[in-house]
């Protein structure tokens, strides 16, 4: 841990978490260095600006994260120096760009610790990844009377594709309930698994509540019945190391733009065996081996699922984002965000009239809250006037709002570049909101 971070944490009342000397030699090889917020922030040009005359405090990372210079520079370099369409080109630029594109796939493979790079399918984002599984795996393997099991804390993108599939096939969508802390009720989840369950699709970390689900247990229970599991990793992937082989999940979906990468690019990981057994999702160029008017032979993985010209530059820049995360270490990010959340939670709970929505024991850096008699939209507008960006609304999880009996929440979500001072600004801001509303 560097001195700045040490001093900052001391100033914020975390001395007990630190050894008397830092770090003790015995742990030197294990303790990850703390993040240096000043250095990190300098990597993100957009953060250096004022909103309504106040320094921007960006706490909407669960919706989308900002991009480090490395990602922006990568995009610029691709378009200025390396760009061409990928695959099958014999000219130099096409070959160079193909190499960069496939290298990005290998970076994603390493990031998720997938066994093969062809298990990495580039898609637009988590939403498209889930729709791909619903329409390809779902329509070929799930029929009338079969069941798909999700949880009550899912984002709409892990609800609606399954409802569409159910309408198309006559399958039934089952929902495992959550408790008032926002934790999945594992006993109910287990009970909801039946002989008819054909797929479990669960969020790894909830965007509305911050809950990190016990996905190892979920996968073990499902696999004991031979049921494959899809994990929606849109929120989890930016905050913790994900090892799809260790988890043994069957599908993993993520979005580049929540990972400090570009929007419009995401990833579906699928086990080779499952992907090979699935029909294509879309037809077109790149996904074929041979086309005649009588019959088309499909291409091998991963191209079978990548019809048409892919999002080339954004895929390459996603690779740059993963390199960036690797350089700061996801373990250090997770540690920093855990401290931010602990500090923010403690301070938020000191505000009269504030209620947290989502208090799971195992949580990512999301602080969703309501204030007595003040609607989240009003909170959001007033905080914006103080330069503080939070999200106010249902966070694409209307059933979660219904469960907690609120129309909406205000949500502060933290990323690697957020600081303890920004938590202070948020808390002061909330107090000002209460003052304005008298």
């Amino acid at each position, binding site marked *: 841990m560097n001195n700045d971070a040490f001093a900052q944490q001391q100033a914020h009342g975390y001395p007990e978490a630190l050894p008397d000397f830092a770090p003790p030699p015995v742990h030197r090889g294990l303790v990850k260095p703390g993040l240096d917020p000043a250095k990190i922030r300098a990597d993100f040009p957009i953060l250096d600006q004022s909103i*309504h*005359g*106040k320094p921007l405090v960006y706490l909407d990372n669960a919706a989308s994260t900002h991009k480090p210079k490395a990602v922006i520079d990568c995009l610029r370099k691709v378009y200025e120096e390396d760009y061409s369409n990928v695959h099958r080109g014999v000219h130099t630029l096409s070959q160079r760009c193909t190499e960069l594109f496939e290298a990005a796939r290998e970076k994603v493979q390493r990031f998720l610790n997938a066994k093969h790079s062809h298990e990495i399918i580039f898609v637009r984002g988590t939403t498209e990844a889930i729709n791909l599984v619903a329409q390809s795996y779902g329509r070929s393997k799930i029929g009338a009377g079969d069941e798909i099991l999700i949880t009550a804390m899912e984002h709409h993108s892990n609800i609606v594709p399954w409802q569409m599939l159910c309408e198309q096939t006559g399958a039934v969508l089952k929902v495992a309930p959550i408790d008032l802390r926002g934790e999945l009720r594992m006993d109910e989840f287990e009970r909801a698994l039946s002989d008819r369950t054909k797929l479990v699709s669960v969020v790894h970390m909830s965007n509305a509540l911050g809950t990190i689900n016990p996905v190892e247990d979920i996968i073990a229970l499902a696999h004991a019945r031979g049921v494959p599991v899809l994990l929606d990793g849109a929120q989890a992937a930016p905050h913790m190391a994900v090892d799809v082989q260790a988890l043994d999940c069957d599908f993993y979906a993520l979005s580049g733009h929540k990972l400090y990468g570009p929007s419009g690019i995401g990833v579906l990981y699928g086990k080779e065996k499952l992907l090979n057994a699935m029909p294509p999702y879309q037809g077109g160029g790149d996904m074929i081996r041979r086309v005649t008017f009588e019959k088309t032979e499909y291409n091998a993985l991963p191209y079978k699922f990548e019809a048409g010209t892919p999002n080339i530059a954004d895929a390459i820049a996603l690779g740059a984002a993963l390199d960036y995360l690797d350089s700061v270490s996801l373990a250090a990010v997770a540690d920093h965000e855990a401290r931010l959340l602990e500090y923010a939670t403690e301070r938020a709970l000191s505000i009269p009239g504030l209620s947290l929505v989502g208090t799971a024991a195992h949580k990512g850096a999301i602080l969703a809250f309501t204030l007595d*008699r*003040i*609607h*989240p*939209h*009003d909170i959001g*507008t*007033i905080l914006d*006037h*103080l330069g503080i960006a939070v999200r*106010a*609304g*249902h966070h694409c999880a*209307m059933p979660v*709002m219904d469960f907690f009996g609120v*129309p*909406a929440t205000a949500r502060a979500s933290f990323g690697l570049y957020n600081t303890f001072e920004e938590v202070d600004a948020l808390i002061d801001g909330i107090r*000002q909101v209460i003052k*304005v*509303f*008298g």
Partner: protein
Amino acid sequence: MLDRIRDLYQEVVFDHNRNPRNFRVMPGASRKIEGFNPLCGDRITLYVRINDGLIEDVSFQGSGCAISTASASLMTEIVKGKTEQEAERLFELFHRITTGKNSEAVNLEDLGKLAVLAGVRAYPARVKCATLAWHSLQAALKNEAETVSTE
């Protein structure tokens, strides 16, 4: 800096948010309509009693932000006793001042207390909060039975 926010959150807004007028169920309403803003989850139920083109009574229920609650409350005050045509005309004026489109020609005095919501035009994300009740009223006057959405 929070002074500027007072352009949006004027005292009248706070007053109507805290104590919304005509905030009640209306038995025997001639029109009842659900208004919904899917962006924020705001919902209102609007009740209207119309007799021979005259809005005899109007009330609402629901949950929403300060802007949508105050706007609904102010609307019920101003349209009660007006004819349907007068209410339509007010909606048009209100729409113009809140969206800032063709708003120069609007005489704010014609709008009475509604003018306090003109500040919302500086907040594009919040315009729908202010107009939800009015869209619902317009649908009620047209006797559209289905749920009204701001989208």
